[in-house]
């Protein structure tokens, strides 16, 4: 096999490992819920077994070693000698996590992770505690590529050059698909052979006994051949034939020990000497031997061919698939495609969308009348383009399940660390989201889950005192809501201690001591930079990452995060995300003859700006007075350096939500339209531009910047935007 092929299989193996880990986790979750069947245990066993098998082929010794020990314990579970108690399942979960670490280490060719010796020991301890535990029945040599470590090690030294082999097949030899003549042929390949066929005095031609083999052979083999060489040829048939192998000298004196020789040497038997050539010829597929009982012609046909007649004895009814693993049929209906190819397609479709918009604009500008063939065709083209775009985006979509499964591990590890009992429940894990969104959601989600374990769920004692079960539940759910993905992290903990949050915010100078805040506003203080309610830095949350970073990460994905909490009942974080990062719903606005796009996700409302609503604070700052609230006011034109001062006259303001939970009002000249735009990154060419998230190409072919309102109002007025040659 070529190196390329091996590299490809190796990559494919790691993909398969991820799939196997997924079925493994699913099955463990079923066992954990107490709903396990024999098949559930089998799924777990098979997953570990397959990982071990593949790892062995690539010489991944550390992975093989770990999988092998885990498999040994699972075998006890499978045999019913070990009960899937909650404690045992918890250990299996931990072992599965470590198995996953081993897979990742093997994949990245890093040093093996901590062996997980303690977990394995604990599991093996369960095994020993089990009443009828037996010594390990599986033997496996985890040493790279090797063939059949079970081949008997023959001690007879080579050197004897002449052997006498007495061989008489039983019916089982033919029934198991073995073929005596192939064995004779293989012997002939070892050296010079003289073969004598022993035929019973009266060949039984009775159909009733036709399946009983009647022939035997005595073969004299000469050559540089060891007994092991000969035994290897008979390896598959030792249990289904009479066989005696002895040095020719011993055989010659007639003292062969077993009954084979005696039976064959029956005075009635008629020996036929066969020339080696005839054996080779007879064993040839093109010339089926008439002497092999039980072998139909069909069995030796050299190529696949339709069956002579449909056989009713064919398949037994397939067992009901109890496994949570996908049906093989479903698996067969998928293909694996290089991500680069998909991204190329996504880009091309983006170009197509832009092209279509430009064409539409040109046609409109040409003064084409409604209901003409061109306009109708254009309409259809638009719809088709949108469908193609949706379809291509779907290719990049993946279920959130693997992400959620990683969170299960976070919960297990985090709860152990703080001596709490927490179970993660997941809902809607088949919900599909863009691959990149999923990847970039991993860190914020991890932090939020840790946060829920650390701050949300109470200690078992406190929960029991509050009349709750000792075990807390964190529910992680995903669903599609109005063209977006909604991810919720809900715990049944104590809820946010608002008095304490307020005190901390005051102590940190985040709010005034006498600030009047609604409950929601208090809750949102959690997202302020630098806010941390942990009175002492715990092992979990003390990583210098606050909820503000979580919020920033989600905002960067075009997402929003909201919080809701009820004392004593729990806290819920809701994350709303776009389905894809390739297109964005935006509001196209004009500012000082420039066209800009404001992401719709950050817009709260739009309003007409009246001079009466503007309040001046200090020397240059302005705020907008809107429905009793004061919101910082920014003139986009001045902010972006398009103009010095605001032009006179009524303007439009766009109210946006900010990362810090507050709001900002942006003054624009006019709102053009609301539309979906294709996101084109700028950072590759310009680096990070303050206040600008990306760019897009509009229907008129002009480039428009997509703004990042939070960043824009945070950064200094002097921006790098002048550096960008705008077509507008």
């Amino acid at each position: 096999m070529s190196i390329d092929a091996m590299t490809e299989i190796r990559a494919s193996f790691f993909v398969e490992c991820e799939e196997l880990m997924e079925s493994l986790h699913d099955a463990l979750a079923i066992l954990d819920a107490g709903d396990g069947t024999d098949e559930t245990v089998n799924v777990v066993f098979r997953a570990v077994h397959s990982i071990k098998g593949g790892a062995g082929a690539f010489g991944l010794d550390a992975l093989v070693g770990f999988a092998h020990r885990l498999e040994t314990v699972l075998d006890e579970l499978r045999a019913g000698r070990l009960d899937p108690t909650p404690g045992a399942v918890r250990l299996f979960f931990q072992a599965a996590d470590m198995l996953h670490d081993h897979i990742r280490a093997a994949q990245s060719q890093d040093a093996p992770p901590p062996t997980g010796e303690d977990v394995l020991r604990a599991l093996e301890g369960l095994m020993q505690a089990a009443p009828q535990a037996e010594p390990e029945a599986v033997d496996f040599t985890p040493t790279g590529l090797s063939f059949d470590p079970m081949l008997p090690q023959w001690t007879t030294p080579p050197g004897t050059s002449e052997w006498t082999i007495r061989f008489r097949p039983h019916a089982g030899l033919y029934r198991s698909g073995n073929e005596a003549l192939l064995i004779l042929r293989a012997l002939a390949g070892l050296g010079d052979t003289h073969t004598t066929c022993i035929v019973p005095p009266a060949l039984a031609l009775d159909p009733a006994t036709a399946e009983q083999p009647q022939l035997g052979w005595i073969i004299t083999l000469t050559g540089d051949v060891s007994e092991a060489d000969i035994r290897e040829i008979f390896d598959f048939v030792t249990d289904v034939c009479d066989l005696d192998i002895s040095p020719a000298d011993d055989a010659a004196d007639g003292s062969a020990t077993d009954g084979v020789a005696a039976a064959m040497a029956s005075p009635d038997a008629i020996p036929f000497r066969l020339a080696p050539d005839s054996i080779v010829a007879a064993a040839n597929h093109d010339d089926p031997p008439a002497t092999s009982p039980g072998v139909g012609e069909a069995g030796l046909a050299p190529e696949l061919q339709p069956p002579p007649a449909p056989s009713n004895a064919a398949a037994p009814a397939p067992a009901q698939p109890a496994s949570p693993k996908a049906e093989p049929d479903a698996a067969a209906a998928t293909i694996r495609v290089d991500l680069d190819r998909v991204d190329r397609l996504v880009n091309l479709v983006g170009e197509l969308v832009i092209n279509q918009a430009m064409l539409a604009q040109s046609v409109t500008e040409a003064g084409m009348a409604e209901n003409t063939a061109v306009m109708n065709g254009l309409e259809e083209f638009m719809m088709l383009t949108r469908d193609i775009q949706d379809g291509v985006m779907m290719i990049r979509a993946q279920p959130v399940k693997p992400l959620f499964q990683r969170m299960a591990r976070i919960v297990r590890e985090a709860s152990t660390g703080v001596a709490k009992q927490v179970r993660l429940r997941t809902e809607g894990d088949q919900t599909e989201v863009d691959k990149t969104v999923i990847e970039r959601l991993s860190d914020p989600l991890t932090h939020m889950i840790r946060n829920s374990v650390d701050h949300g769920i109470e200690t078992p004692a406190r929960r029991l005192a509050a009349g709750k079960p000792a075990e807390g539940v964190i529910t992680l759910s995903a669903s599609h809501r109005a063209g977006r993905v909604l991810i919720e992290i809900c715990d049944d903990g104590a809820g946010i201690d608002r008095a304490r949050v307020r005190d901390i915010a005051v102590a940190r100078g985040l709010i005034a001591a006498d600030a009047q805040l609604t409950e929601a506003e208090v809750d949102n203080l959690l997202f302020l930079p630098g806010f941390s309610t942990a009175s002492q830095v715990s092992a979990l949350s003390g990583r210098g990452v606050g909820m503000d970073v979580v919020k920033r990460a989600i905002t960067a994905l075009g997402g929003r995060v909201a919080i809701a909490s009820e004392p004593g009942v729990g806290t819920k974080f809701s994350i709303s995300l776009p389905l894809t990062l390739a297109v964005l719903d935006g509001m196209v606005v004009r500012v000082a003859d420039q066209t800009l796009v404001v992401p719709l996700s950050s817009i709260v409302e739009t309003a007409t700006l009246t001079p009466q609503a503007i309040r001046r604070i200090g020397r240059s700052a302005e705020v907008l007075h809107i429905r009793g609230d004061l919101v910082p006011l920014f003139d986009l034109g001045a902010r972006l350096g398009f103009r010095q001062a605001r032009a006179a006259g009524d303007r439009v303001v766009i109210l946006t939500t900010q990362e810090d939970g507050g709001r900002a009002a942006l003054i624009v000249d006019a709102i053009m339209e609301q539309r979906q735009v294709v996101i084109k990154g700028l950072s590759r060419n310009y680096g990070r531009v303050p206040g600008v998230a990306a760019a897009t190409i509009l229907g008129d072919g002009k480039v428009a910047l997509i703004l990042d309102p939070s960043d824009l109002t945070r950064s200094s007025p002097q921006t790098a935007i002048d550096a960008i040659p705008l077509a507008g």
Partner: protein
Amino acid sequence: MGLNILAVDDSRTMRDMVRLTLASVGMNVTVAEDGVHGLELLEGSLPDAIISDINMPRLDGFGFIRAVRGIDRLRAVPILVLTTESAPELRARARDAGATGWIVKPFDPRKLVHTVQLVTG
């Protein structure tokens, strides 16, 4: 014309290894994901040899081999068991079911080819 081989294994990695190994010496390999799938593929074909895993969902290797041997035209097709477990009782069970021989995973590619050639002649 190369030999036609049916390889039945629930592990994609193993299927790929067997397929590429045997294809490299000119054999044509058809793959199935479990015993039921294997039997489906056998409905219209007659391979020169079958290579089967033991541990598989839906229908395991023992059941698969028994079912194959129950089909008249397939009763003499060599069936090699490919498994990581090499315990004697497992061999005995495979033999009872009708297995021709066995290969232990991880396998040496040359040995796999050699063994397939041995049982197919």
